[in-house]
């Protein structure tokens, strides 16, 4: 039982990160129906930037408290990621807004390759070990262990999701975003600056991704130039699971996917008599994706049923 609770805690932590990344996919998809393939790489850039800031601050012996260092790292990583996303949208996606759907998807793949290899040139090929900034403290819950980092990740994710919900449902910007996602042309006629809305959707998603990158970096205490690829794909699976284009769906999907992955990895050995082990971990997300597409293509909370093109 304590193993079960432990897997739930691990799954919840991972799920929160997936949810934050999935929000970026789902927001962009909701507005311009593009799978922003390079979104995972934005997460990677966030992690790498924060790594650079953290290590250089530690090397400078500033004596700042760890949380302040993390805050400074975030303050650097978020704008860099937002800028990357802004440039990416302007250069690679905007000119193709009226092109066939295949075209922006292919440029997205190209951008993803470019970002990865530029990051590799800057930060090198080998994984970067994050310094142990925050002293790890473990708390006992019913025989299972939860660390302060896990608590921090869960709280921060929930706070960011709440902020995003507020932004989308309570501000003028949010109204414009929802209008654009329902009907671009009509939103434009009603005085919404559609281009601005699309750009800000990209940059908001990138900001979330940057924080996700920092969380992943501190959680696994390492970052590598390829880390965004699999993470991005899983987050996309989460977005589809919840119903792509749906904000609440992305959160639900992310957390569910994290739980499925943690529990699946933890119990696959017991269920299959150790024929399959935890090395099949990365398969779960895609199995979930394929199952969702077979049985409920619109996702758990999605409403865009039968939208074929």
């Amino acid at each position, binding site marked *: 039982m304590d193993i079960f609770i432990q897997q739930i805690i691990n799954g919840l932590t991972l799920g929160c990160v997936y949810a934050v990344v999935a929000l970026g996919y789902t927001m962009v998809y909701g507005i311009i*129906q*593009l*799978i922003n393939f390079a979104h995972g790489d934005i997460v990677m850039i966030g992690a790498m930037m924060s790594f650079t800031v953290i290590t250089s601050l530690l090397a400078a012996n500033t004596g700042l408290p760890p949380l302040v260092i993390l805050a400074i790292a975030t303050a650097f990583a978020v704008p860099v990621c937002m800028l990357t996303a802004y440039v990416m949208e302007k*250069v*690679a996606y905007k*000119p*193709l807004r009226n*092109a*066939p*759907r*295949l*075209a*922006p*998807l*292919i*440029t997205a*793949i*190209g*951008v*993803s*390759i*470019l970002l*990865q*290899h*530029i990051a*590799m*040139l800057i930060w090198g090929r080998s994984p970067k070990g994050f310094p142990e900034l925050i002293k790890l403290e473990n708390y006992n819950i019913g025989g299972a262990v939860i660390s302060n980092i896990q608590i921090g990740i869960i709280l921060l994710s929930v706070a960011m999701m709440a902020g995003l919900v507020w932004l989308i449902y309570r501000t003028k910007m949010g109204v414009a975003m929802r209008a654009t996602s329902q009907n671009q042309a009509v939103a434009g006629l009603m005085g919404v600056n559609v281009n601005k809305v699309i750009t800000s959707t990209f940059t908001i998603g990138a900001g979330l991704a940057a924080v996700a990158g920092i969380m992943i970096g501190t959680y696994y205490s390492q970052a590598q130039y390829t880390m965004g*690829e*699999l993470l991005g*794909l899983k987050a*996309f*699976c989460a977005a*589809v699971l919840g119903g792509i284009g749906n904000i609440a769906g992305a959160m639900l999907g992310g957390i569910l996917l994290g739980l499925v992955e943690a529990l699946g990895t933890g119990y696959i050995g017991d269920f299959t008599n*150790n*024929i*399959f*082990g935890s*090395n*099949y971990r*990365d*398969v779960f*997300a*895609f*199995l979930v*994706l*394929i199952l969702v*597409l*077979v049985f409920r*293509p619109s996702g758990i909370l999605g409403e865009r049923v039968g*939208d*074929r*093109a």
Partner: protein
Amino acid sequence: MNSTTTTASVTNPSTMKAQPRTAKFWFGVALITISLLALPFVLAMIGTAWVRITNLAILFIFLSLGLNIVVGFAGLLDLGYIAFFGVGAYVYALLASPHFNIHLPFWIILPIGALTACFFGVILGAPTLKLRGDYLAIVTLGFGEIVRVFLNNLSRPINITNGPKGLAQIDPICIGSVSSNPYNCAGISFRGTDKFLGLDFSGPIKYYYLLLIFLIAVIIINKRLQDSRIGRAWEAIREDEIAARAMGINTTNVKLLAFAMGASFGGVAGGMFSAMQGFISPESFVLVESIMVLAMVVLGGMGNIWGVMLGAVLLSFVPELLRYTVEPFQKAVFGKMLVEPEVIRMLLFGLALVLVMLYRPSGILPSSVRQRSFANNSSAKA
């Protein structure tokens, strides 16, 4: 991609019948044939490595023509294409190696490989092809990852794939024998050098000719498919799926057919790869390879067979050229290697994908241009 492509190819069959085959045309065919036949011997003079590189390039042409059916003709983005290649390669390796001590001849394994890959294509495509095209891209990508994870881990509890170490000592092709075991090959073995007409036919040269025959067959199949009823249905779906459905095309089945056909081509190419290399490991079937094949199709010109072939040739030889130019250049200028050729290659790939989509979405040799410039050539297939 654009609507003019469709109309041009619809009118194509009637216009090309009018073209007479001139002496100039036959002279061109003869010239190409002779140079293709002589090419491996010229390359062998520079070094056998170049024959191998050329063989791999032909294999990639083969692969990209297979992907072209899916991406170019039917307009479905398949990002896990290399998985089908991997399936074919592993089928060959398992059925013709000391691993299980099975040594079936290659003309039995290749259809098995094609069918296995086709089967995977169908079970993957059936649930997803009903949906939007971009879902397919992600699902195929996920499928590619799943295949790679399984290849890496199916060494336990029963050792099927031998894990990351891969499978070695795969039998070379042996024509005219019921067992492909290289030690009692009764027919023409593709291992070692044979003397024939005073020329040295080394292993790679023999593979070159075999691949060439396969390639010509694939080009003919591709051409015939493109101009067939199915090919036109694919084109219609690519341009406007709803309109195609309204015209009575069963879009799901026709898309599934494209997907399955592309997968089987991948399977055959995988078998050839296995036989040629003699060793395979999961490392050869990663996402980057899928993207490289996709880049070949996109860069050359989606849907245009000649464009795709050009793209494949370009992208197959660019890494080799980079290896021979970038390394010495950097060593001469900076005294050491600053940027590895592999990284430059990937940066160029990424840049090429973006730039081609932005400025020339139909590729270097777009389909519509082909209708005019290759009008004479295309009559040859009839």
